[in-house]
């Protein structure tokens, strides 16, 4: 009997066959293309084939060529602004909702949770279009509302002004994703044993002190995960700008992000030629890759170290989806 277990259970060829389909698809369509795209950043060519080795040529052009580098640094800076606004607004809102929903029981809690999470399930493209309609300067709901309540001086072309366009898009993004940090913080807060608060309350600690001294330190690992997720999500953002402004990041490139810049250079081709410069595009994604890598390491350092086991998971689990 023992022998038959061994024979069937340990025959490695069977287990290899089990893993093979997943392994093949994952290798061919993810692992290989990702690594190969990093390699292709050292190549140049015409159209879709990259056959000429150019060393760091693409990077030199990206960082120094006057036309290209101007657009690149602009998109790079915009992405950081976009990240800063979303990070602050979306995750503060998320933390606030989580604190409210894990505090003393409220009526219809389940209802609010369901509502808060709805936008997460929607397509970024669709929410982008709908908000674009709401922000329309002539007949958009926002400006009509502002005019009605006597604030017509605030009825501005929000998406047409380089000073406000990027912030508006970041806020729409925060609106869409706020449900995610909310639910993560709720999960974290619910795991804190209730007797910790009770003894703190007996000691006379107020809401604010309980938050700062007990809740916040205990959910630091989740703050780390949320930050990394926001970071990765924003450095890959494309859809929201594409929907609300278009692939060129108007007005005057004020909403151009790494994602839209990569799309124009590497995939669609610049106006008016329309031929993609895929080597340069690969260089853009490689830069993105290393920025993400550095950011994740940093977040891990800041929030992971002092919080032991759960903190370690920031590095291995927090990197988020494309």
């Amino acid at each position, binding site marked *: 009997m023992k022998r038959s277990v061994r024979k069937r259970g340990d025959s490695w060829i069977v287990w*290899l066959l089990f893993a093979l389909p997943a392994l093949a698809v994952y290798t061919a369509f993810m692992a290989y293309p990702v690594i190969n*795209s990093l390699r292709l950043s050292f190549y140049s060519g015409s159209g879709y084939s990259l056959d000429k080795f150019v060393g760091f040529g693409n990077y030199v052009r990206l960082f120094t060529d006057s036309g290209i580098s101007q657009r690149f640094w602009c998109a790079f800076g915009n992405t950081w602004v976009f990240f800063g606004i979303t990070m602050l607004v979306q995750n503060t809102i998320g933390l606030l909702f989580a604190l409210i929903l894990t505090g003393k029981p409220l009526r219809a809690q389940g209802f609010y949770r369901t509502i808060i999470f709805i936008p997460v399930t929607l397509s970024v493209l669709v929410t982008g279009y709908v908000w674009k309609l709401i922000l329309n300067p002539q007949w958009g709901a926002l400006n009509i509302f502002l005019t009605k309540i006597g604030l017509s001086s605030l009825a501005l072309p929000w998406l047409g002004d380089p000073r406000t366009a990027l912030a508006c898009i970041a806020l729409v993004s925060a609106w869409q994703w706020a449900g995610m940090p909310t639910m993560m913080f709720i999960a974290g807060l619910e795991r804190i044993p209730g007797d910790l608060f009770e003894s703190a309350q007996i000691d006379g600690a107020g809401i604010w002190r309980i938050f700062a001294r007990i809740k916040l330190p205990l959910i630091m690992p989740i703050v780390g995960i949320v930050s990394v997720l926001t970071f990765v999500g924003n450095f890959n953002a494309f859809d929201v700008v594409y929907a609300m402004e278009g692939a060129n990041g108007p007005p005057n490139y004020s909403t151009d992000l790494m994602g839209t810049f990569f799309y124009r250079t590497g995939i669609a081709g610049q106006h008016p030629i329309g031929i993609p410069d895929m080597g340069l595009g690969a260089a853009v994604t490689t830069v993105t890759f290393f920025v993400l890598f550095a950011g994740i390491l940093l977040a891990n350092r800041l929030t992971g170290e002092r919080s032991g086991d759960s903190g370690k998971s920031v590095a291995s689990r*927090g990197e988020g989806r494309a």
Partner: protein
Amino acid sequence: MAGSGKVRDRSKPFKYVILSVWTVLVLFPLWTMVVNSFKFKNDIYLDPFGLPIALNLGGYATVFKDSPFPRYFLNSFVVTVISLALILFFGSLAAYSCVRWKSRASKWIYLFFVAGLTVPIKIGSVNLLQIMIKLGLLDTTLSVVPVYVAMGLPLSVFTLYEFIRGLPMELTEAALIDGTGPFRIYRSIIVPLVKPALATVAIFNLVPIWNDLWFPLIFIRKDDQRTLILGVTRLFGEYQTDWSKILAVLSLSCVPVILLYLSMAKQFIAGLTAGAVKG
């Protein structure tokens, strides 16, 4: 306790105010989208908030009659179903193998999958585009399927691995002793047991696949091959002024996921949060 209870009570109205304001902020865009899709163009301009004065089903009629949108809808449906089926099948096979195959090779295979959690697949777009050209899949709906499967596998293998590892192994041991083949064990013992985990995996793959714009955008240009979300991008170019049609399409493209979400909100929230955290 009594003192702090009072403090909390005072904050209660504020909590309701905050939650209600956000509820309005979330529902208002959806309301605008749906309600205006039933209005005539001039009524949208006159009153973008209220219920339709006169009901206009024209937007929806043009969507269903000679427009490519039913086709786009079908394409998206096919892509999502095939991708999910393959992710669940391949992912659970691989996860089961990684749990049961006691060898160094299986450890490395597992780590190889888990490494994929840290990398957004978009980084590989340049090479993926070349691969699709080489395979002759460019401009076909199905070109996105292998990419979605590859993209979904790391997290799915990870989740299913954790779940299968937690199963009581006596069940499969007994079957092994009876001489049952590994695939029979997988099919008749493992799959029924991991159903809850499969549901989670299905949810956190379903939403990003159905909603994805990027890969259809870079792979598919041919009209009849577009997915629904890619089709939506054409609205503004072609039907510049037909707002009721635009809004009808936008509403319809959300309907499947919203209905699914509302019918099982708890599982969606748990699944998508797990997907984001682990992914």
